[in-house]
């Protein structure tokens, strides 16, 4: 049977399925009480700041329709910024403004080339407030924050938007990483299910491997045609340390950490995810389940994140 041989292949490689992720890892290691810390991006940002970790600067929070009316004042000083729902998921509802019209300041140029009028932006913000993008449709807040200027290393292999690095941190150990490269298809967004390319990163060295587009393997960027393999991500050890510390900050055992590399400010924590996706396994051509089971047998190193990173890098080198 073909199914049976596939089943054998997948489990031999320790590929984690959704049922196992939900039942064995999220349910056991992520207490529900801690969810708000990561589901509310405002709170996770505050927590990270309090721990002295770098995050994109917060320009403002829109909490009410009245706040939304004051958008022009809030944004007066800003040429580029990001609007995102505090409780969004999967990148939905995020608007990235790269610059504004020189003469017409109420025209916002989005990163994917579209242009938004002030009124449209305000409408988008009020949709966020009424909960269109939030989990469960609850009323939400809109965050306005610094628009990351991506590091030149990714210039050749991303289309429009900002690439980010997703790291799965399990019990404080960074176990798997990939970089997510926006494409024309993803509209400049770095989410795999929106059409971005993911490329695996060697945990030990920070060098990229083969990428994945949808569910297929690719080795060059679909829009720019440049190779996405063999690229050294700069400041990799810093990125690893930052990811590992996130576990100490929010306390979730099974965590997806999204980090962006700003050309001036270096690695910044973009957001945290209590239900990280599983495509990272395809990008790395490695099963996550195998690594998670291995980590479960390791000792608890407390808050010594450097030791955790070292151990993980030694164990999971490509």
């Amino acid at each position: 049977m073909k199914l049976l041989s596939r089943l054998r292949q997948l489990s031999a490689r320790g590929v984690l399925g959704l049922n196992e992720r939900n039942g064995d890892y999220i349910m056991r290691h992520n207490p529900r009480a801690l969810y708000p810390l990561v589901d509310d991006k405002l709170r996770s940002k505050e927590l990270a700041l309090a721990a002295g970790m770098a995050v994109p600067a917060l320009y403002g929070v829109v909490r009410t329709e009245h706040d939304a009316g004051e958008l022009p004042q809030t944004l007066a000083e800003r040429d580029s910024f990001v609007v995102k729902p505090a409780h969004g998921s999967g990148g939905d509802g995020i608007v990235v403004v790269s610059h504004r019209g020189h003469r017409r300041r109420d025209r916002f140029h989005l990163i994917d080339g579209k242009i938004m009028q002030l009124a449209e932006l305000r409408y988008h913000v009020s949709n966020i407030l009424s909960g269109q993008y939030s989990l469960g449709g609850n009323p939400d807040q809109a965050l306005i924050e610094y628009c990351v200027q991506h590091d030149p290393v990714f210039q050749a292999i991303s289309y429009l938007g900002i690439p980010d690095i997703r790291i799965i941190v399990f019990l404080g150990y960074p176990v798997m990483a990939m970089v997510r490269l926006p494409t024309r298809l993803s509209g400049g967004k770095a989410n795999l299910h929106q059409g971005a390319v993911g490329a695996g990163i060697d945990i030990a060295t920070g060098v990229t491997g083969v990428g994945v587009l949808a569910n297929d393997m690719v080795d060059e960027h679909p829009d720019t045609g440049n190779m996405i393999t063999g690229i050294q991500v700069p400041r990799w050890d810093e990125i690893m340390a930052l990811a590992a510390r996130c576990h100490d900050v929010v306390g979730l055992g099974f965590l997806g950490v999204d980090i962006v590399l700003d050309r001036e400010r270096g690695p910044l924590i973009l957001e945290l995810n209590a239900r990280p996706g599983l495509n990272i396994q395809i990008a790395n051509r490695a099963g996550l389940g195998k690594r998670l089971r291995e980590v479960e047998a390791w000792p608890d190193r407390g808050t010594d994140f450097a030791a955790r990173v070292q151990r993980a890098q030694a164990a999971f080198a490509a």
Partner: protein
Amino acid sequence: MSLRPVLIIAALLGLIGLSLFSYKVIVLGFPLVPNETTDVWTVEARIAFEALPGSVKVSLQIPTLTPGYTVFKENFVSPSFGFTTLYTASGRTAQWAVRQAEGPQTLYYRAVVYRDRANLREDTTPTLPPVPVLDEPYNTAMQVLVDEVRAASADAATFTSELLRRLNDPSPDQNVALFLSQVTTPTELAQAASTLLAGNRIPSRLVRGIQLLEQQRNAAIVPWLEIHDGDRWLYFNPTSGEPGLPQEFLFWWRGSQPLVHVEGGRNTDVRLAVTKNVAEAMVVAEARAERARSRLVEFSLFSLPIQTQAVYSVLLLIPIGALVIVLARNVVGIQTFGTFMPVLIALAFRETRLFSGVVLFTLLVGLGLAIRFLLEKLRLLLVPRLATVLVSVVLLMLLVSVISAKLGVEVGLSVALFPMVILTMVIERMSIVWEERGAKEALQQGLGSLVVAAICYAVMGMDYLEHMVFVFPELLLLFLAATLLLGRYRGYRLSEFVRFRAFERAP
């Protein structure tokens, strides 16, 4: 986290469900197949007589203890007569009485009986009868006969067989012949046997009954002999000595008194008639359960008013749909809009039928999406926008109904059964997915929902399943157990074999 508590709870639920189920099937005879019928017989006693001037009193023996059968509907037709039933030493009597009557009178007793294997037990253990004291030469003949038969037998049953064999011997010995000299009918033979059995202190009763045949206008009354072996009642054919009961034999009354006794009347004629017909198995099972004083049935769905029953016969299908959803999402991995939306759509499909249901659903969602995209331009707040879509959906449903009525397409009318709030939410969610993730994913999820709804419809539409959960709601405990077990399923979803197919080519 150990799997054990889930296994234990699931096993318990399964056990409870299965035992209730088998009790209802085996003991109460609840039907396993929809519209199952069972044989019932309507038996009737018709008493005709000519009343003499003055008061009239009629006593009729009626069935009470009927091994193998249960009487469940009785009625008494007796114009102008006062009527009562009473229990007597030998059984049950119906009594009609009137102060003044004249001329020909007819009274009826009617009852419906059904086969009931559970009703084989008898309720009384009789005391040992005294040895009868007879006139000579009968007394000596009895003594000799009893001694002979006892010597040739081992227990009450073989004693009875041997005795009846001798009584029915074509060339009887002289003691037997003495007893048989006064016997002309099988009833009298049975009475003589009864006397001789008492000679050996075996309790016995003369029973009269009828054969439950297809159709009988004037059923023959057959005498039978019941003896008690100290443990239970045994039955013998008095004219052959064979043990057991004839096929389809209904005990009508016991004792030596006549079937009917009329005071103040003459030319009495009594006839027993039988008609076989069929009744719904469920009706009979309920009657049986009621007799057994089963709490189970008292608290069953059948105690609810008919309309409520109709509601529940649909509601009980929802757990089945829920199990289908669990399988579709966690084992197969199909994405749908709204967790249980497909179940509700499937319920609507029950009225519209599948094909037209799918067409109507697609039509409504398509039109709703078009309206939703137009609304996007108006920049409404979320809740007013949802309300606008809801109103539009209702108007669209109305439009579809009216147009299809004009065209004479009847199925368009049933569009009103679609859950409009659910449709509205589907439209909203679909439009968001459409905008954020692209048309492909939106259509994929929409199709997924429709496919799961169709599967739910197919499963929930099985008459057999509907019958089973309605008659045996305890089977839902099995569904619950299955759902619990699936809740601990940690294996791959079928869709993940496709999703992770890249691993196959990888080194």
